[in-house]
């Protein structure tokens, strides 16, 4: 025992000394080029996302360097922002969705953005209600299937309870993923809270897994672990363009589909705030919007950007009409109830 205590002490003291000696390296002199730090989710900042393209365009003229700080999914951006706060060093946050806005406003201070005069699609207008966040793309959520795999095509939320789909549906976890929260709120809005949670209880039997992120969920679906996954109406287009595969279709449900908007905002503690504003303008420019549309497979908010592209031909699904943002307390209550149901299942 004496040896063990001595050993552990030596290791930790050694590490402590090493950390202290390493610390001065952290205070390296700042380079003269200003650095714009953008905090976004992985599919925005990663090599397949619009991030690298936007960075390239921006760096041509700004005389600065763009650095991305990656968060795994839009659902965890706020959590990280709350934990790290100013030490995160973000000048711009990209990828918050409508469920995050109330919480974001409550937890952080944000700079006002001048977003007047934007010529946006009608579906986007309700999302321009506050001065702190501006949407940069939007999408319609829908379940995606492979053609000819199901004998009975679901046309409503209730059809997801078909025996054929038992343990064959992948939905994102609403606690960690924005589309997962969208699904939960979709059910509550269309069925009412009590009936909605009864429905959620029934879907527990049908769900293969509640994936922590959209990419994990869609990965399970494309690897044929599941027959359908909650994704976007534009997902089949991705397979058509990138893989020349026409086997995927998005299902239209009678209830009307939820809309998801992705927002960006500049935190009050930004260091290069002007550069951040310029980057916001780039994202809202035609070039920026086109890049986001092509890389994110989401609709642009600025009118006429998608016209003449395959995105214009994506079928128009009936959507939930009014734009509602639940309060942070409501979201918390829904998630608590959802978690209770999930635990009851013991999965």
């Amino acid at each position, binding site marked *: 025992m004496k040896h063990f205590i001595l*050993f552990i002490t030596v*290791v930790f003291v050694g590490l402590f000394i090493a950390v202290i000696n390493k610390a001065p390296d952290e205070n390296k002199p700042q380079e003269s080029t200003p650095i714009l730090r953008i905090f976004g989710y992985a599919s925005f900042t990663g090599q397949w996302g619009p991030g690298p393209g936007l960075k390239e365009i921006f760096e041509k003229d700004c005389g600065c360097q763009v650095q991305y700080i990656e968060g795994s999914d839009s659902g965890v951006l706020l*959590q990280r922002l709350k*934990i790290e706060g100013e030490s995160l060093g973000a000048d711009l946050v990209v990828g918050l969705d409508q469920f995050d806005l109330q919480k974001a406003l409550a937890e952080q201070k944000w700079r006002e953005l001048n977003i007047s005069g934007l010529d946006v699609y009608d579906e986007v207008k309700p999302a321009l209600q506050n001065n702190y966040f501006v949407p940069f793309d939007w999408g319609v959520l829908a379940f995606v299937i492979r053609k000819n795999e199901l004998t009975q095509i679901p046309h409503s939320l209730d059809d997801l309870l078909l025996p054929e789909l038992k343990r064959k549906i992948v939905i994102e976890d609403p606690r*960690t993923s924005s589309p997962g929260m969208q699904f939960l709120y979709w059910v509550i809005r269309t069925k009412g809270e009590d009936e909605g949670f009864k429905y959620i209880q029934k879907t527990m039997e049908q769900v293969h897994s509640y994936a*922590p992120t959209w990419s994990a969920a869609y990965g399970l679906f494309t690897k044929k672990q599941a027959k359908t996954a909650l994704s976007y109406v534009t997902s089949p287009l991705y397979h058509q363009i990138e893989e020349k595969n026409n086997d995927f279709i998005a299902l239209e449900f009678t209830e009307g589909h939820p809309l998801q908007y992705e927002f960006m905002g500049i935190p009050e503690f930004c260091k290069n705030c002007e550069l951040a504003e310029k980057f916001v303008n780039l994202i809202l420019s035609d070039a920026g919007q086109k890049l986001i549309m092509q890389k994110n497979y989401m609709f642009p908010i600025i009118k006429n950007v998608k016209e003449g592209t395959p995105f214009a031909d994506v079928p128009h699904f009936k959507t939930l009409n009014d734009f509602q943002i639940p309060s942070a307390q409501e979201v918390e209550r829904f998630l608590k109830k959802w978690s209770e149901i999930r635990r009851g299942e013991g999965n």
Partner: protein
Amino acid sequence: MLVAFFESVKYVGHLLPISFLRVFLGYYYLQQALMKFKGDFLTRPRIADQIAEWLPASHAPNWYKLFMSSQIIPHWQSVAFIIVGLEFAIAISYIAGYVVRPVALLGVLLCFNMLFFSGPMSEDLYKTFLAIHFIMAWVGAGRCLGFDYYFFKRRRGIWW
């Protein structure tokens, strides 16, 4: 001591395959610890992010989640230091075969916690590591090709 180190192969040679596994695992932990030490694991709240990201989705009991959110996340710097320290301790101990039994129990404890906040992608890895640490502690894996044999020969007892 050095004689005992090699002599162990002769007397507890049946543990030799386990010793290779031990050294391999030690090397893995050394890599992990060095990566964390050289990177920003100790200076940025990576561990707090990880906990915040995965803990809600884990199957951990509620009291554990509450404890992690209220106590561990705010003190992420100490937690990061402890994790790196434990990884270095496991690495050195396993490679040298010194105080393997108690250190393996620390390994069990570390893996058990990592299971809850490392996300589904690493869950299987940590489950496997947990079993390996447990076996290391059970068989006393430091007795073969390790300095534990020297102490085991002289002192016996459960710690070697």
